[in-house]
C-alpha cells in the first residue's frame, strides 16, 4: 500500500468516526453554513461536533502548517481529503474569507507574528473576516480607489467608503485597501487590518435584485487604525504603500479559486433534470438544452484539465481568467434555461412551492457572476494581453 493509499484509508476511517450523518447532507439554507466568529452560534449539535472535530484535527485549513492551526497536509494529501469528503458529501466544517482570502495573503506576505495570531484565529473559527476592496467609483478599475488613511505616526485615520463587503455586518475584522499616498496610484495603497467594532465604522446591507444579500456598504469615518498590534504584528500586510501587490495576489488567487471550484454546479449538464422537472420539453428548448449541455460537459473536462495542470505547475498562469470568464457565462446561461424550463412556476417570487422564489432568485443572483471577482470584460482583457499577447491590450 502506497503512502497515499494509507492516508486515504486513515481519512476514511476518521471521517466515518467524526462526520455526523446530518453533516453529509447538501447545504440547503444559509444557516447550514458555519462561518465562525465572535458571535457565531451553531445551528445544531451535529454542526458543532463536526466543526470541533475538524478544528482539533487541523482540518478546517488542512494544508496550512500545524503551527498555524492546520494539519500540514501535502497538496496530494489535501486532494485526497477533499475527494473523501466529497465522496460522502461532507459539508465544509468552516467557511470564511479568512480561510479563502486573508489566510493565503498572510501565508505569502505576513510576518511570523501575524501568522501566529491571525492564522490560528482563523483556523479555529474565532475571528470572522470581511474584505474591503471595491468602492462606488472603483469597480473594474479597483486601483483608482480613494478611501484615505492619514498618517498620524503610530496610526492612521481612515475615511472613505467600501462597497460589496460581504457579511460586513457580521464580521469581526476587515482586511481593507486604503490609500496612503495620493500621489502614487499603484504604490500608494496599504493593505490594512482592523476591528469592525472600531469607532467610526458602520455598515449598511445592500439589497440585490435577487433580494436580501450578504453584501454591505461599509463606511469609515475617522477610523483609527494602529500600525501595530504587538511585537511583529503590524496592522497591515506586506509593506506600507505596497498593498497593491498583496491585493493583486489575492485577486489572482480569488479567480483561481472561482475557476478551481469551476467544477461543481455550473458545469453540470441540465437537460435530463429539466425533463424530470417539467415533463416533455418543447422541441426547440430541448435542442437549446442539448447545445448547452455540450458546452457544460466540455467545460467540466476543461475544469479537470485546469486543476490537473495547476497542481502540476503546468498551464498558463493567466488561465484562471479564462476559467472564470467561461464558467460564469455558462452559469448564467444555465439559469436562463432553467427558468425557461420552469415556466410560469419559476416566476413565483414568494410562494411555498418555490421555497420563496428560489429559481427566480438564483437566476437573478447568477447575473453577478460575471461582474464580481473581475468582470467578464476584464477577464477578456487579461486573456488578450497575457495569453494572446495582443498589442496595446
Amino acid at each position, binding site marked *: 500500500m502506497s503512502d497515499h493509499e494509507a492516508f486515504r484509508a486513515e481519512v476514511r476511517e476518521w471521517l466515518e468516526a467524526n462526520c455526523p450523518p446530518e453533516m453529509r447532507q447538501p447545504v440547503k439554507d444559509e444557516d447550514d453554513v458555519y462561518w465562525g466568529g465572535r458571535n457565531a452560534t451553531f445551528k445544531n449539535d451535529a454542526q458543532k461536533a463536526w466543526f470541533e472535530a475538524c478544528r482539533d484535527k487541523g482540518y478546517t485549513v488542512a494544508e496550512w502548517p500545524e503551527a498555524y492551526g492546520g494539519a500540514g497536509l501535502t497538496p496530494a494529501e489535501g486532494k485526497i481529503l477533499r475527494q473523501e469528503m466529497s465522496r460522502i458529501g461532507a459539508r465544509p466544517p468552516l467557511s470564511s474569507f479568512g480561510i479563502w482570502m486573508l489566510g493565503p495573503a498572510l501565508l505569502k506576505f505576513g510576518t511570523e507574528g501575524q501568522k501566529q495570531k491571525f492564522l490560528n484565529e482563523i483556523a479555529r473559527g474565532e475571528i470572522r473576516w470581511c474584505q474591503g476592496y471595491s468602492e462606488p467609483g472603483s469597480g*473594474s478599475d479597483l486601483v483608482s480607489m480613494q478611501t484615505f488613511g492619514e498618517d498620524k505616526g503610530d496610526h492612521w485615520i481612515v475615511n472613505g467608503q467600501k*462597497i460589496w463587503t460581504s457579511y460586513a455586518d457580521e464580521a469581526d475584522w476587515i482586511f481593507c485597501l486604503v490609500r496612503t499616498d495620493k500621489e502614487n496610484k499603484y504604490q500608494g495603497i496599504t493593505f490594512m487590518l482592523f476591528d469592525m467594532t472600531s469607532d467610526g465604522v458602520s455598515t449598511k446591507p445592500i439589497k440585490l435584485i435577487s433580494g436580501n444579500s450578504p453584501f454591505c456598504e461599509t463606511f469609515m469615518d475617522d477610523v483609527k487604525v494602529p500600525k501595530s498590534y504587538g511585537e511583529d504584528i503590524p496592522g497591515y500586510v506586506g509593506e506600507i504603500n505596497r498593498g497593491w501587490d498583496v491585493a493583486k495576489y489575492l485577486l489572482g488567487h480569488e479567480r483561481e479559486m472561482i475557476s478551481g471550484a469551476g467544477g461543481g454546479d455550473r458545469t453540470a449538464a441540465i437537460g435530463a433534470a429539466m425533463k424530470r422537472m417539467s415533463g416533455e420539453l418543447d422541441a426547440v428548448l430541448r435542442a437549446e438544452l442539448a447545445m448547452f449541455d455540450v458546452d457544460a460537459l466540455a467545460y467540466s473536462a476543461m475544469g479537470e484539465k485546469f486543476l490537473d495542470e495547476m497542481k502540476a505547475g503546468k498551464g498558463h498562469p493567466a488561465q484562471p481568467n479564462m476559467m472564470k470568464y467561461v464558467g460564469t457565462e455558462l452559469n448564467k446561461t444555465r439559469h436562463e434555461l432553467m427558468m425557461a424550463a420552469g415556466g410560469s412556476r419559476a416566476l413565483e417570487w414568494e410562494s411555498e412551492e418555490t421555497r420563496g422564489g428560489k429559481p427566480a432568485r438564483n437566476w437573478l443572483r447568477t447575473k453577478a457572476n460575471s461582474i464580481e471577482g473581475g468582470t467578464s470584460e476584464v477577464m477578456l482583457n487579461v486573456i488578450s494581453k497575457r495569453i494572446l499577447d495582443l498589442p496595446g491590450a
Partner: protein
Amino acid sequence: MPLYHDDDQAMLAETASQFMAEEGAIAKQLRHWRDRDCKDGFGHGLWKQFAEMGFTGMLVSEDDGGLGMGSYEAGIVLEEIGRNLTPSPFLASSVLAATALKHADNNARERWLPGLVSGDHVYTVAIDEGAKHRPETIKTRAEKSGNGFKLTGQKDFVLHGASSDMLVVAARTSGNDDDADGITLFAVPKDAANMSHDAVRLVDSSMATHTKFDGVELDGDAVIGEVDGGREILNAMLTAGRIGAAAEGVGVASGAMDMTVDYLKQRKQFGKLIGEFQALQHRAAHLYSEVEIARAVTMKAAQLLDGGSEKADLMASVAKAKVAKAAGLAVKEGVQMHGGIGMTDEYDIGLYMKRDRALQEFLGDMYYHAGRVADMSGY
C-alpha cells in the same frame, strides 16, 4: 400601408409616451405599489386614468363605446407601458379579454364592455394549464348542467386573476384534451361560486393566480361565441395577445437599452467613459440592431392582423420570439454593463430584467414560438 406611424398614430405615440413617462413612471407606479406590497400589483387610479385617455377601450368598437382602433395602435400604447414598466391590466383586459368580447353576443357585450371602457372593471383570461404555455391542450372541462355549464379544472398564470371582475376561461365542452375542436370560451364573473384563487406574486411584482374551478355553475349567457366553437376566438385572442406582449417587450427592450447607453456615457473606469471601449460599443450597436428589428416585426405583425391577413398568426409568433431574443439581450447586456450597481435593487435596470422574464413566458416563450414557426412552415 407603409411600416411607420401615420399622423394619427404619431400623435397617439406622443400622447402615450408623455402620459406613461409621467403617470406610469417606475417610481410612481411599479416601485410605489411593490414597496407597499399591493395585492393587485397595479394601481386602480392609474387604470381610471387609462380610461380617461381612451386606452382601456381602444380596441372596443365605437358602437360599443370604444375607439375602434387596432392592434397597431394598442402596440403603440404597450410599447410605452413596456418602456416605463407600468403595471396595469391593459394587456389582459383591453387586448386579450376585449378581443374575446368582440365575438360575444350583444347581451354579453352590453354586460361587460361598459365597465372595461370606463375603467371601473378589470378583466383577465385563463388559458394556461401548467407551467408552460401549451394552448393546444385544454383539459379544463365545462359539462352541460341544466341550462348552463359546470366548470371543472385548473388554470395557471392567470394575470391578476384575484383582482379581476371577470375571467375569460377557455374550457373543453367536448372531445379529448388535445383536440382542436370542442373548446368553448366562458365569461366567468368574479363572484362565481366554487372558484378559488391561489394568488402569487411574480418576479416582476405583478400578481397572478392558480385558479381552481371546482364545479363552477355558469348559465348559457356566459358563453362567448359558439359552444364548441371557441378555438377560433381563442386563436384570435392569442394572436392579438402575443403581438401585444411583443409590443410591450419592445418597450422593455428599448427602455433597458436607452438606460444602458446613457450609463455608458456617464460611468468612468480606467480614466475613460466606459462607452469609449470599443468592445462595449460593438455590443451596444449589435443590441441596437436587434431592438430595431424586433420593433419592425412587431409593427408588421400588428399591421397584418389589422389588415385581416392570414399571415398574422405566423408573424405573431415570429414577433414574440424575436422580441424575446432582443429584449433578453437588452436586459442581460443592461445589467452586465451597469456592473455591480446593476445588481442592486436601488437601480431600475434589474426591474427591466424581471419584467422581461415574466413577459417572455406569457403566451409562449421564444422556444415555443420558434417551434411554432417551424410547424406552420411545414418542417
